[in-house]
């Protein structure tokens, strides 16, 4: 004869019921828990959103340039600050097998003098109108072709006020040289807060006081079927005093420069970790208080024959239910913040993978909070029911 048996519903729906009732019957404590979790989700979400937003902004030029490989001056740490390379490198690059096209690309800081006085730092970006590679995107007024107008430049609407521009056709100065605003983009942000000013490559050379024989980057497009690693190696071997990087690698280098070397990323990650810690402490504290209040009930379950895993399930499900509801509330607030920042200079970005990451972090946070309660329950003596 077997002294015990097990069959049927192994999921123990009773543990879910107990978990939910334990939470919902202590409304004040439950609300406090949810507020704590939601606050934590918002804090983590905001910091994560800013981090991703900053990263995307920092490398936005690289990611929108439509180049397979970038040829850059040796020692270039990010796309916004570059030295000079001779234009003739373009022709040398074109001779490398597997290269379909090479375009000059200018990126250089300059001073923008506002019409009503004062000046701002800007980043002049010059590209080849013929290929369009490296040009502005998200045009909302004017066209790229308008850059053929003498002295034409395109700016982003986000920085219109900052640059003192009231509308199309306005004449301003960059490095004491006259330019005319011929178009607007919408949503091209800059990490440095020095707005990107798009113009032709030749005009950018003039504005940045480069000689016609110099540029900052070469954008390489590969021929169909060419092996990017082979072409990269051949370019590096043939072109002296330059570095050749795939777009993705240059984007990551730029992101890590702005986010790591400036400490901005560390500050954001620290704040996110703080949110995680706050949430863990709040969940841990409220769950433990609830567990202590219900020790007699847990002891009754133990006396009735509940094993440790049954009691642990009740605690874990309480934590998980709190996590799901707290996450939903926190996510709603965070997404509202993301939507609000779409029109600002600093944008938060939360792609689907980051929402999943946030959900996992929230769940782990709540489960970590449950550990103290589980530890207490594990040592519970069923004879407590007789006291």
């Amino acid at each position: 004869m077997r002294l015990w048996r097990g069959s049927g519903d192994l999921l123990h729906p009773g543990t879910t019921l107990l978990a939910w009732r334990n939470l919902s019957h202590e409304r004040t404590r439950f609300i406090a828990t949810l507020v704590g979790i939601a606050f934590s989700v918002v804090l983590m979400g905001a910091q994560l959103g800013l981090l991703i937003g900053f990263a995307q902004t920092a490398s936005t030029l690289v990611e929108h340039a439509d180049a397979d490989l970038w040829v850059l001056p040796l020692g270039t740490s990010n796309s916004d600050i570059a030295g000079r390379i001779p234009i003739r490198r373009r022709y040398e690059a074109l001779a490398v097998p597997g290269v379909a096209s090479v375009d000059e690309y200018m990126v250089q800081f300059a001073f923008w003098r506002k019409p009503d006085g004062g000046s701002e730092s800007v980043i002049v970006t010059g590209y080849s109108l013929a290929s369009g590679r490296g040009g502005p995107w998200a045009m909302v007024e004017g066209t790229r072709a308008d850059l053929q107008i003498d002295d034409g430049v395109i700016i982003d609407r986000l920085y219109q006020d900052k640059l003192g521009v009231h509308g199309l056709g306005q004449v301003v100065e960059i490095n004491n040289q006259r330019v005319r605003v011929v178009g607007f983009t919408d949503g091209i942000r800059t990490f440095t807060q020095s707005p990107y000013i798009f113009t032709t490559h030749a005009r950018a050379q003039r504005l940045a006081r480069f000689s016609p024989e110099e540029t900052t980057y070469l954008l390489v497009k590969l021929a169909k079927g060419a092996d990017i690693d082979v072409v990269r190696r051949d370019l590096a071997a043939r072109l002296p005093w330059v570095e050749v990087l795939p777009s993705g690698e240059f984007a990551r280098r730029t992101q890590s420069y702005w986010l790591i070397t400036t400490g901005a990323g560390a500050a954001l990650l620290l704040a996110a970790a703080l949110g995680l810690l706050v949430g863990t402490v709040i969940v841990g504290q409220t769950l433990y208080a609830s567990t202590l209040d219900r020790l007699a009930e847990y002891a009754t379950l133990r006396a009735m024959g509940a094993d440790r895993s049954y009691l642990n399930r009740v605690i874990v499900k309480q934590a998980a239910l709190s996590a799901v509801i707290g996450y939903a509330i926190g996510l709603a607030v965070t997404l509202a913040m993301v939507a609000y920042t779409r029109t600002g200079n600093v944008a938060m970005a939360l792609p689907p993978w980051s929402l999943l990451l946030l959900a996992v972090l929230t769940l782990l946070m709540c489960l970590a909070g449950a550990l103290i309660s589980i530890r207490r329950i594990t040592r519970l003596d069923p004879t407590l029911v007789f006291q």
Partner: protein
Amino acid sequence: MKDAPLLRLEGVRLTYGHGATAVEALRGVDLALHAQQVTLLLGPSGSGKTSLLQVMGCMLRPTHGEVFLHGRSLAGASLEELTRLRLAHFGFVFQHYNLFPTLKAWENVAIALDLRHWARAKMRGEATRLLAELGIGELGERFPGELSGGQKQRVAIARALAGEPRILLADEPTAALDGKVGREVVRVMQRLAHEQGCALLIVSHDPRVEEFADRVLHLEDGRLDRDRPPAREPPCA
């Protein structure tokens, strides 16, 4: 009625603590519980009744002696094995009911079935059947806070009977109830024990319980000093 005992204790001793501070709660108890038998355990406070109940209910392991469940020795069983044995073979009724206040009456009963891995679809029907058996079928939707003491104890008895355990252990089941309700509760327990073939042990101070017992044990200072049939007439309270 006098089949092989469901539960048997042989020379059970239980000592709390060590050395000079050791306290001997049970001093060699021999006892057997049989199916369809209602046993009343009487004894003054501190006589070891609760300790004996805990040893019989597989919550404590004796310091010496052996416990046999369905003839099998439990010596060497781990705490988790004892937990599984409690679940499979025992039902408990507590002095203060120990119902889950956040669960409705039928859910309190269903929890005992959930522990035994019953399918979700069958739990409600069985819980309702058990409540009806105890005469409170219509109260299934109420929370414990909405029930009287007697009704709560009936829910607790229904919970103890869920899963058809063969051994029912009741700790002062009438202590929190008035005389009439207390008698009614014990009467129901007695009836169900006889009908379902359970061994029922009631630990009580209440002399009115004796009229429902088949056998009365007296525990004194950790020893069973009397094992007698119940008095015909209940003694005056």
